[in-house]
């Protein structure tokens, strides 16, 4: 039943709201893999990030499993229900050895052929500001060197629905999908490549970022 409802919500609500309501300008859509397993590495500004990613990534959307903090997404029974059956998160208990929990949770999904969605900044932070990236993605990539790691840079979601706001105010959203990043045996270098992609995409955004406060 959840599968059917997920489908209805996806095509009748998510896609129209994201594409007609907000509008997304996607560059590099062909870089999304046709099927799992894969790792998506996305910058994080807003709760909309997940929704936009699901809307633009094509048929593989059914396999996307976002890594999320258990203390936030399991905060109450309702959220827990939504998180488990509709967002289908990989819950991470941040209180005890979060890295191990992260690697275990992600490995399970990758082994099942799913797509793990990671926000390497960890939190949404200030709107449209890139924060330092955490190294978990690199650790995971080291264990799965053959699985494509696709970097995605989103801009505009933080303007549309920033952290702490309840009212979305529509702006067009820009999405940049990069070529898969290869594992070359070096964690720092791997994360630096992702960061470089985020920054390079950020410079291509057609509007003056500096004026945002």
């Amino acid at each position, binding site marked *: 039943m959840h599968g059917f409802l997920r489908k209805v919500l996806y095509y009748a609500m998510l896609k129209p709201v994201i594409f007609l309501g907000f509008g997304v300008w996607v560059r590099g859509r062909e870089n999304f893999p046709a099927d799992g397993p894969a790792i998506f590495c996305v910058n994080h500004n807003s709760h909309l990030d997940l929704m936009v990613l699901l809307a633009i990534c094509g048929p593989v959307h059914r396999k996307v499993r976002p890594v999320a903090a258990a203390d936030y997404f399991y905060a109450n029974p309702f959220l827990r229900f939504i998180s488990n059956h509709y967002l289908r998160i990989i819950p991470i208990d941040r209180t005890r050895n979060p890295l191990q929990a992260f690697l275990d949770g992600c490995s399970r999904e990758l082994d099942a052929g799913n797509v793990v969605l990671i926000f390497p900044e960890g939190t949404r932070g200030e709107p449209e500001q890139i924060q330092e990236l955490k190294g978990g993605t690199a650790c995971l990539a080291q264990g799965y060197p053959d699985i494509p790691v696709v970097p995605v840079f989103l801009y505009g979601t933080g303007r549309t629905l*920033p952290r702490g706001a309840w009212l979305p105010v529509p702006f067009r959203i820009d999405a940049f999908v990069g070529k898969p990043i290869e594992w070359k045996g070096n964690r720092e270098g791997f994360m630096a490549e992702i960061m470089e992609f985020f920054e390079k995409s950020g410079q291509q955004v057609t509007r*003056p970022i500096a004026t945002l406060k």
Partner: protein
Amino acid sequence: MFELGLRAGIVMAGVWGFLVAATWIVNRKKTADPERDFTELSQRMTSWWVIIGLLSVGLILGKMATIVLFAFVSYLALKEYLTIIPTQMQDRIVLFWAYILIPLQYVFVYHGDFEMFLVLIPVYGLAVIAMSMIITGVTDGYISRIGTIYWGLMMTVFSISHLAYLYVLPEPGGPVTGAGLVLYAVLLTQFNDVSQYIWGKSFGRRKIIPSVSPGKTWAGFLGGMGTTVVLAGLLGPWLTPLSMPLAALSGLLVSVAGFFGDLNMSCVKRDLCIKDTGAMLPGHGGILDRVDSLTLAAPLLCHFIRFFGYLGDR
């Protein structure tokens, strides 16, 4: 279905014939000269199919569909405008009110309430935007913030809604229908754009305002104007209540206002140092790149038709 009217229906069929012929010519050129890159031209053609398709569906379905269509165009244009201008986070609530004005404006269009339609944005919008901006409590850049938002609202909502208002001008039942007037306005402005472009490409040498747009030449402007005046003179007496000389004059008005509307958006883009406002319509750019000429032409044409076509005997 029956609101379209015979005359508008015939003109619409003509537009489709024109589109099919143009697509055929582009395809023939493509096969004749496979070396050249026709990507932009083909993309433009595809976008025209979408635009003309949506407009036709709207006009055939009737008043509600047409008005909803133009309300959506206003929404997309305003969203694109707010996306490219620098906006501040604390102004989100002001932008929210700007968006709320769109459905209100089109409700007044639907009911043919000319007075409220005219004053909603200049009077109530002015007050709401100012009040909500003051409540943010931020005075940094106050003048430019309020100026850009208010101006954008005038360009994308107030202006474009005049196209939709044309739909409710005629009394139902006559040979002149609202659909015909809307078709007349859209056809003239868009045809003027295309013919200015073609005249400019073919004969253009002397630039008019190179600092704003290097592509605008005297040949393009005057050639396009002549073509539009002829088209207006031919179609006007049939689709609108205007006599032939007045219809030709309305063509002149559209041509000049369309030209400046186009440059209007060019100035905005120059100021922001961007090339296109978006990528919604492949080959054209964003939706603002397509409706730019309407921003000045639509209100002027609407008032011209109302003044000379509908106020004379009152």
